[in-house]
């Protein structure tokens, strides 16, 4: 589904290289977790995959369902079925949730050659999906993320994930700032959305999330590269030993 080869990414403004030859392959229906210390390049990876401005890909390729992902604009990627749950969801004062979702869902459906949903059907869908993450259905008249609590914002991201039904979803530190109950709600929502046709990339700093969303693979990202890959046990090992342990391992290897 997604194949990243030797990806090098720099910050456009000052040329600092963040990703230094990253390789990653995610198959259909798989759940991958990327862990790593602060500043290792986790969020940069998420932003680059989603097509955010301000980064320069200096080398490497990203294939998404066989197409060159990097050729596509941010909205085209989204319509192709790539979803990013933002670490810091943006507030859009004056843009109502219902109008926002209508535009997004219909754009994606249109691209997929599906019929536009009727208002009724859309509303029904919103109601169902909102229930999935215990979001108040009254939110549809509120502005996107405006006045939402931290937990509500994160749940709203998963709600949108559910609405847009992407092929590939990146969750960028969705667990950060969540208390245990909210974490469980988010995780339940994600688990519910797992399917053989849908892959996930979980970006996280802590192992905690992985207790609830059990990954197929765990990768450790350090200094712009994946330095170790393992099964779900790797996360536990990291939790126990910290990232320094890997640093030692990798320097020895080097």
């Amino acid at each position, binding site marked *: 589904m997604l194949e990243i080869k030797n990806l090098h990414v720099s910050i456009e403004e000052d040329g600092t290289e963040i990703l230094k030859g990253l390789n990653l392959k995610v198959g259909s229906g798989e759940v991958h977790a990327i862990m790593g210390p602060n500043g290792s390049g986790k969020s940069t990876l998420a932003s680059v995959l989603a097509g955010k*401005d301000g980064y320069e890909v200096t080398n490497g390729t990203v294939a998404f369902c066989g197409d060159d992902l990097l050729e596509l604009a941010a*909205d085209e990627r*989204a319509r192709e079925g790539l979803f990013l749950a933002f670490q810091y969801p943006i507030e859009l004062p004056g843009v109502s949730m219902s109008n926002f979702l209508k535009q*997004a869902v219909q*754009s994606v459906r249109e691209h997929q050659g599906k019929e536009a949903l009727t208002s009724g059907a859309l509303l029904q869908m919103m109601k169902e999906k909102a229930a999935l993450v215990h979001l108040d259905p009254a939110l549809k008249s509120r502005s996107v993320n405006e006045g939402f609590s931290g937990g509500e914002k994160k749940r709203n991201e998963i709600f949108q994930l559910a609405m*847009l039904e992407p092929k590939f979803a990146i969750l960028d530190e969705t667990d950060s700032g969540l208390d245990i109950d909210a974490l469980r709600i988010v995780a339940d929502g994600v688990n519910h959305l797992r399917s053989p046709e849908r892959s996930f990339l979980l970006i996280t700093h802590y192992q905690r999330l992985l207790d609830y969303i059990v990954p197929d693979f765990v990768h450790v990202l350090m200094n712009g590269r994946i330095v170790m890959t393992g099964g779900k046990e790797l996360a536990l090992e990291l939790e126990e030993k910290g990232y320094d342990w890997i640093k030692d391992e990798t320097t020895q290897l080097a």
Partner: protein
Amino acid sequence: MPSGVEMSMELKEQSRSGEDVFIERFEDLIGPNTNGSESEWTLNRRNAIQVFAQNGFPNKKSESYKYTPVTKWLQSQLKNGMHTAAGSSVQSGNLKNEALPTPLLDESEVRGEPSSLENMKGLHVHATNGLIRGSLSEALPTGLIICSFKQALVDHPKLLSEYLTKAVVLERDPFAALASAFAEDGILIFVPAGLEVEKAIVIHHDALFSNSLIQARLLVVAEEGTKVNVIEHFPFLDAGSSFENRVAEVFAGKGARVDHVLVMERNDQTLFVNSLFVHQDANSFFRTNTVTLGGGLVRHNLNFLPDAEECETHLHGLYVAKGTAHVDNHTLVDHAKPNCFSNEIFKGIVTNQAVGVFNGKVLVRQDAQKTNAYQSSKCIVLDRGARTYAKPELEIYADDVKCSHGATTGELDEDALFYLRARGIHPDAAKLMLLEAFAKDIIGLIDFDEVRNYLYQRLHGLLTVTK
């Protein structure tokens, strides 16, 4: 602040030639004061032309017209043969002075298509050149007066002499003085004490003489304890390059609640100067929502005098400037008495080669302790070539006050755009959504569904084309 270079240029070009045209025209129109027994109103008009003669049109040194070249526009329109008819009196439009440009065109009335605002629940008034045309749509509640000044002069002379010209400050703006001098008639709305007018009074300024100078007046008197909504619509009219210069005076009596909406959509050759002077008595509430979606050069002079304690004043404004339009909102809230509140929010979207100007002044006089005054101006610039000027001013002479202003100018928020696009929304649609959301803050403050919906619809059309 003018730099020295600009300043020295200003001095060389102090041309005041345009004024004489109007002063002579006025004399032709009114004639000499023969026996000294003229009506109060005529005396007021003479006074107004004198004030105009003293101050003249804004020149390059006029700080309040620093960013808005009204005089230049006016002069070019005069050269192009604009009629300088005063009010509706066509006969007075025949120019006697040979030096004046000869009118080239027939003054034919141009009427606009009925807008959906026609269908809203309300007391509908139609106006040609700022004067009531035909009869009102339905019977008025008891005591409510809506009529021409000329009619009022016969039926309610005391009302006119008590209120007319009492709110306008002629020295503040030459255009206000000019309209006060030339307007031969006007529209009077009088709400007697205690009356709450349920339906909105909707004035459709939906007909003009093409290529004319129109100077009109509006007087709204809301006595103690009243409630009234006045909605004014200046729809698109294919009336060539007209100059509408109007003065509106509003009196909000003790505890009165007056709500005003102005929607301006004239064609792109129109020069439109709107001077609003509001006088507020104790505990009164006044709100205006000035929405500018059209016009060539538009200048709103909005003046507020909360002249007693516990007044509440709200100024809301939205403008979309496209093409080569020049839209200027110039406001003054003159806090003269203690314990008043004012809140001002203006938003603008400026595209193409257009210019957006905001100049808002909050003046707090020495006696106006415990004033709370807020002002905010936000502007989105969409295109290279578009320009914006903002001059939000605070002038404070009392210490126990809370006053603030903020002004921002910039592009659409990049992060917000990215968020929308990351959800699969096309860039153009995303921009439109954000622009509409931006405008909604202002339109959403209007009480009437019909007006809000009308404006959302117009805005959508306007911004879709704009992108």
